[in-house]
């Protein structure tokens, strides 16, 4: 009886793993059909793996790239950077990788997905304090975040932006103008640690929270209708660096490099600035 149970278990495991491998195998085979053996003037597809926060800006850069390169279609895969690295490691075929931080770009270099020294910083993102348009807590400066009874919404420390928010408070604590009392008072005002940054934006724009800390790029044109923002000075801020690089496995190396160049060009930088990123050239 036991051997029967064992054999069923084994069979089940084999079936499951078989299902997983076929799926993993299916993804890479799909890409080549999209990018048929590159005949020069014919249709070509450029696949770009980019961090979710780049969705709006990269879509626009992609449209520009297509208009500059007739016959080329740019397809995007937007996801959390960590998920992108995972997909690439699992063998997903792509041409360009744009990361939301240097940590994951370094991971891609270590995994041999990106050639060393080909990654270039194309934009920066930073933290900003947001509050509802009607400003129920009367926020005028950073010190107001310490007002007693204020409802502050932060991202959880497991989310990069949540960790950056805590870093900001640490820097403020070390700054004579604010001090540790400021950090403690601000932390005691936190009503929730959200599991993602968009939840912070939503709760502040709904007016449920008096203030929140998010990325500058989270204050999209849409969000700006219901929230106002308060800058955090650079010396207290954490600057997130966005690097981009062509992938070593790319079958369209020329196009991949051309796309990277466009992102770094003044046209690309203008688009990124439009969506709230700090252009690389500005630093």
């Amino acid at each position, binding site marked *: 009886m036991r051997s029967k149970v064992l054999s*069923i278990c084994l069979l089940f495991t084999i079936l499951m793993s078989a299902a997983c491998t076929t799926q993993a195998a299916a993804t890479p085979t799909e890409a080549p059909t999209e990018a048929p053996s590159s005949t020069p003037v014919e249709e070509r597809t450029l696949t770009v793996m980019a961090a979710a926060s780049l969705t709006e800006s990269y879509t626009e850069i992609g449209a520009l790239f297509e208009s500059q390169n007739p016959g080329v279609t740019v397809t995007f895969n937007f996801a959390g950077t960590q998920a992108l690295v995972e997909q690439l490691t699992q063998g997903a075929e792509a041409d360009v990788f744009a990361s939301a931080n240097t940590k994951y770009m370094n991971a891609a270099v270590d995994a041999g997905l990106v050639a060393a020294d080909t990654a270039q910083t194309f934009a920066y993102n930073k933290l900003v304090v947001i509050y509802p348009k009607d400003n129920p807590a009367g926020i005028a400066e950073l010190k107001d975040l310490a007002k007693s009874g204020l409802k502050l919404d932060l991202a959880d420390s497991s989310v990069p932006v949540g960790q950056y928010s805590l870093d900001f408070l640490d820097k403020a604590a070390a700054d004579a103008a604010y001090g540790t009392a400021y950090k403690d008072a601000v932390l005691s005002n936190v*009503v*929730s*640690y*959200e*599991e993602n940054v968009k939840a912070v934006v939503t709760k502040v724009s709904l007016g449920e929270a008096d203030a929140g800390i998010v990325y500058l790029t989270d204050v999209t044109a849409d969000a700006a209708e219901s929230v106002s923002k308060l800058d955090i000075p650079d010396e207290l801020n954490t600057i997130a660096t966005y690097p981009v690089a062509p992938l070593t496995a790319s079958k369209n190396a020329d196009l991949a490099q051309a796309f990277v160049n466009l992102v770094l060009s003044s046209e690309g930088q203008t688009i990124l600035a439009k969506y709230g990123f700090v252009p690389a050239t500005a630093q």
Partner: protein
Amino acid sequence: MKNSTAHHPKKDSQLWKLLSAPMLLFILIPILSLFLRTSPADVFQNLHDKQVTQAITLSLSSSLVSTSLTLLFGTPVAYRLATRRFRGYHLVDTIIDLPTVLPPSVAGVALLMAFGRNGLIGSFLADIGITIPFTFFAVVLAQMFIASPFYIKSATLGFSNIDKQLIQAAELDGASRWQIFRYIFIPLSSKALMSGSVMTWARALGEFGATIIFAGNFPGRTQTMPLAVYIGFEISMNVALTLSIILICFSFLTLVIVKGFLHARMETEEELISY
């Protein structure tokens, strides 16, 4: 299955056993792997983690409050549904069922729209200085919204299974409405009420989506066990595993209790029918 009319009953039963194995294993293996991934020593050690104890305390206290409130406010609804065929009966019945099929995230947004600081009712409450979101009470409301139908449905079923002749007899003897409710309805449907309460409690304990949206996530204030599992999955796998195991044990225990009660009730129903 035991005594099928097929030609080879034994062979047949073997076949069914084999066919049912994949589904059973599919459910069993993930749960087993959760237990195999950790050791009892680890679980007990993690029980002393502040985040874990806070989450357990908060989950137990909030689910007890939400279950009690459900008993208080749900029983009249169940009584009405069981004893009256009023206009709009089906509408009320459907409304009660709605939270069980709604995605909890939708419930969370809905609660925010109603009881949020700028919500339909919340804005009036805010004027008198009461804000609900991000508080313990918000956790309770989220749980009640999602979990109360389980009690109400069970209680309604229990109340409607009571023999009408018994009630008529009591009325003839001059019993008041309250006496009938207190001495006939409650005792005769006690098992349905109990199993309904336990189901509501268990569902409240597992509530996640509405809570994280409406009450937020703050350790010790609104971070219940499911929230700690979700957040813990991203920072501390040990916390997530320990709380998952506790939640599985609670759920298992709940089902054992409920199935015990339900089984007993079905037997009494059979007795009634044979009467």
